């Protein structure tokens, strides 16, 4: 497993190039997930998203998740990249790739990694709405508080 199995990127990256890093003659399946910036959330039109990370701990926790995936599933390789900064609709916010001898393990590892990354890695998302307001996701109350000033 490479040291850089989980990375943060301020720049746009190309999933195809990331997939190449996972090339392995023993792999019979490659499964990838891309998370895209979507133009709405909970009924509100979204214009753009801002991602902020606590880099030191995000990389540590993300790498732990990849390590767990290696233990739980018979993956040959698994990587994840998460963007930070200001992203526009349609951009790739997160990419996960996993290879295994057979497809089941590749699917399962990919699913495990994205689910765990979303719930455990210290990365936050601020939505900028079409109406000019903005708010930190999963912090609705605080967003309301912000706007009351």
């Amino acid at each position: 497993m490479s040291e850089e199995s989980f990375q943060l990127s301020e720049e746009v990256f190309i999933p195809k190039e990331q997939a190449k890093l996972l090339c392995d003659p023993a792999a019979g399946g490659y499964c990838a997930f891309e998370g895209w910036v979507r133009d709405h959330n909970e009924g509100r039109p979204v214009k753009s998203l801002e991602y902020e990370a606590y880099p030191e701990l995000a990389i540590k926790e993300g790498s732990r998740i990849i390590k767990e995936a290696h233990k739980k599933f018979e993956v040959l390789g698994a990587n994840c990249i998460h963007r930070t900064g200001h992203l526009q609709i349609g951009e790739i916010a997160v990419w996960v790739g996993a290879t295994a001898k057979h497809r089941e393990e590749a699917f399962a590892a990919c699913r495990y990694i994205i689910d765990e990354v979303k719930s455990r890695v210290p990365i936050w998302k601020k939505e900028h709405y079409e109406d000019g307001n903005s708010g930190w996701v999963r912090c609705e109350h605080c967003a309301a508080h912000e706007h009351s000033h």
Partner: protein
Amino acid sequence: MKTLHLQYFAILREQRGLTNESMQTNASTPAQLYEELKCKYQFSLESEQLRAAVNGEFTSMDTSLSDEDEVVYIPPVAGG
């Protein structure tokens, strides 16, 4: 009194208006320190919504803080 080094992220960074600061405190746990900060800077999140990290690793909100520790509060995460 001990000196603690704080880093702020996301909503806490915005509400504090700073990315990091050092402070003197008598607080002995991250939970106690947060109550102090919440009161002083009007943070909107409740202590129960946060996780704490000390010296770059997740820890309990009730762990003992030592002089020169680096403390980060982690609001509910929302990657992906």
